[in-house]
């Protein structure tokens, strides 16, 4: 009993992979030969039907997309770039100025606070400072003097 072509061998034949063994079998086996012929005919008819121009619309009139249109012209591009730079640069410079002002204010504030701290920390007014060296402000030493006088 003759062994007919497998599904894979039939596919091989259809895609053109025709080994000598396949060619010999198809030549000798009428059943396989008929089946292959019918399949090839069906595929050819399908191809013809699908490629029938009546089934497809005419190609659309090609118009270049916006890349070639006038808005993309060089003068417009330069103007747009300049406008963009202004828009970007203005907030940047404004922010920089604000930052400088804030830094100066912070410096002034810290200088003021330092001067206030310095003033508060003074034990006596500046005009009386020469007297400080003449007076002992140590209370414990005063107590010791009083005790010594009692004894």
């Amino acid at each position: 009993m003759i062994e007919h072509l497998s599904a894979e061998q039939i596919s091989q034949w259809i895609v053109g992979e025709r080994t000598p063994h396949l060619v010999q079998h198809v030549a000798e086996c009428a059943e396989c030969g008929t089946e292959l012929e019918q399949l090839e005919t069906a595929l050819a008819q399908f191809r013809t039907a699908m490629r029938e121009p009546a089934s497809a619309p005419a190609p659309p009139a090609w118009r270049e997309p916006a890349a070639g249109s006038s808005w993309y012209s060089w003068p417009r591009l330069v103007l747009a770039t300049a406008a963009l730079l202004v828009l970007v640069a203005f907030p940047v410079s404004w922010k920089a100025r604000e930052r400088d002002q804030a830094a100066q204010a912070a410096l002034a504030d810290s200088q003021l606070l330092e001067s206030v701290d310095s003033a508060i920390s003074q034990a006596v007014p500046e005009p009386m400072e020469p007297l400080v060296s003449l007076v002992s402000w140590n209370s414990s030493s005063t107590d010791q003097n009083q005790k010594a006088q009692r004894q």
Partner: protein
Amino acid sequence: MATAIASSHELDDFEAVVRLHWLKVFRFVLASVRDRHTAESLAQDCFFRAYKARDGFRGEASVSTWLMQIAVNLVRDHARDRRLQFWKRARLTAVDVTTAGSWLPDAGASPEAAALMKEQVQAVWDATATLSERQRTVFLLRFVEDMDLLEIAAATGLKEGTVKIHLFRALHAVRERIKGAK
């Protein structure tokens, strides 16, 4: 490199590119999505994308294969798109399954022979509807667009061996359908 240079020059006159390849792209997309309006839209999108990407075309493949690569990607993306609007529209404008057979030109065949041919075309058309997306793509590129395995591999991004597996499975399904139609 001569091929690359020639191919790059091919894209200079893009209107000619559209005229030359429109039918091929359209019929592949139509057979894939089976909706005329969607096919027209996708085919136009294919050429629009190709136009935008033309500077990047290096000519590793032919312009035709390159366009089919874009078309295959568009069909794949479209298949993934499950928007309700598409399905509503697809139902309204889907290609009638009897249409494929009627596309067959009558080349003086007898009524019986013509009827048999239309049946066979119909059987193949029906079979392609049951294939997986990849099998259908590979089948259409091979048997409608006459692309060889290497070209299909380039267009689909699949390995040649994988292309062959999909093609064999598709052929098996089509053969079974034709047998069943007898």
